[in-house]
């Protein structure tokens, strides 16, 4: 068990820092970026239950800039209104960056099972990316692969809190730079897992840096078309029983997401242009 260094945000909740008025003020800016830089196409929002808690489970792309998250948050907030409680879990290091102060008013909280439970018990929609830093820095040529690194915590949370899982599948984020390697070995040598809970030190070719190691300062994402497909809700207890075999449930849900991602990839004619 690795404990968080003291300078990282704690697991204490930041739920009260979410601010619907702030979201409303900033939505136009993010809408402009999502609509005209990333030409985002978000489909199937009507499948998300209109009220009550729901666990939105996404595949993660785009390095530390994560355009898929921005496009989805804009679409969700516009569709359901900024009033609907909506939180996103993020790595504590992301929330430690001063330049990303605006994430908290948008409803981003430190990723932890306790915070996930708390959000869902408040009746909120919660967006999680089980693949996290591992998946978001996968090489560009694995763009059409869902890779949660075997992390099944999201299943246990949804089962325990009796909330539906809604898979959110996106493509395009991994084309916003040329991601070359996760740099897992490098991260291990530098003991980043112990210092920052980081299992990767990604290496990419990205604007404006050229060779970009770590992506700590972010990068200027290329205007790749982002397509997001929301799938039908899954009731874990109805589908897998009260004592599910986690491996079976994981394979089933990730398999469903992978099939959707493969279909979205087949729709794309050219990289970046979509």
């Amino acid at each position, binding site marked *: 068990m690795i404990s968080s260094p003291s300078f990282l945000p704690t697991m204490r909740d930041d739920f009260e820092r979410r601010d619907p008025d702030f979201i409303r003020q900033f939505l*136009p800016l993010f809408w402009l970026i999502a609509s005209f830089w990333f030409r985002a*196409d978000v489909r199937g929002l009507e499948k998300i239950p209109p009220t009550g808690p729901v666990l939105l489970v996404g595949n993660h792309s785009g390095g530390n800039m994560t355009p898929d998250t921005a496009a989805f948050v804009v679409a969700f907030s516009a*569709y359901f209104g900024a009033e609907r409680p909506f939180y996103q879990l993020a790595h504590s290091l992301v929330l430690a960056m001063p330049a990303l102060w605006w994430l908290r008013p948008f409803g981003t909280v430190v990723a932890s099972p306790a915070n996930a439970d708390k959000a869902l018990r408040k009746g909120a929609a919660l967006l999680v990316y089980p693949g996290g830093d591992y998946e978001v820095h996968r090489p560009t040529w694995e763009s059409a692969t869902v890779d949660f690194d075997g992390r099944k915590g999201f299943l246990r949370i949804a089962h325990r809190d009796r909330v539906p899982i809604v898979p959110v599948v996106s493509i395009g984020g991994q084309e916003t730079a040329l991601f070359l390697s996760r740099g897992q070995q490098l991260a291990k040598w530098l003991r980043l897992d112990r210092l920052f809970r980081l299992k990767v030190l990604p290496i990419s070719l990205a604007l404006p840096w050229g060779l970009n190691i770590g992506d700590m300062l972010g990068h200027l994402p290329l205007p790749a078309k982002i397509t997001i497909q929301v799938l039908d809700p899954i009731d874990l207890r109805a589908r897998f029983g009260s004592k599910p075999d986690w491996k079976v449930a994981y394979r089933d849900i990730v398999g469903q997401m992978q099939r959707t991602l493969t279909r979205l990839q087949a729709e794309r004619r050219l990289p970046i242009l979509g």
Partner: protein
Amino acid sequence: MRVVVYTRIDAPRQRVWDYIVDPDRHIEFMEGMTRWEAEGARRTGLGARFAMRMRVGSAELGGLIEIVEFDPPCDMAWTSITGVDHRGRWRLRPGDGECTEVELRVTYYAPGGIMGSIADLVAWPIVRGHLQRSLQALKRGVETRPHTRSARFGGKQRRSTGGREKKRAQATVREVVRRG
């Protein structure tokens, strides 16, 4: 930002009015609209509320709206309760002979200072395009579909109106918008 589009429909005003106020029809002819559902028991008239969404750019914008003016068969206006701040109005006026002059006005405002103003400006051609095509669809629908109760309230409806009517409707809307 304010968007105003017009068309002239070769049908009596009451018939156009019946078509517009039927919530089942609304989602059929309103271009870009992804949702139009009555909220609560009232499905039409003053005070009726609807959950509406229209695809603009990457998002489906809208929210809860309420009918705040209902003057058959002349005017129907709505205002937003939640979601994107906007107002809208249908104005139906008698034209020559059996014609009806139809005007659809929508005024919207995005918060966020300069960015909101830029977003308003950028969204304008998209919204105008949706509204123009909506009037074309309305014109086609009213002029070519039989005006029967079964057709108005969920009866089987004609899907295709034919290319000639479509082109005629587009030409009329273009001409009237140019004049407006």
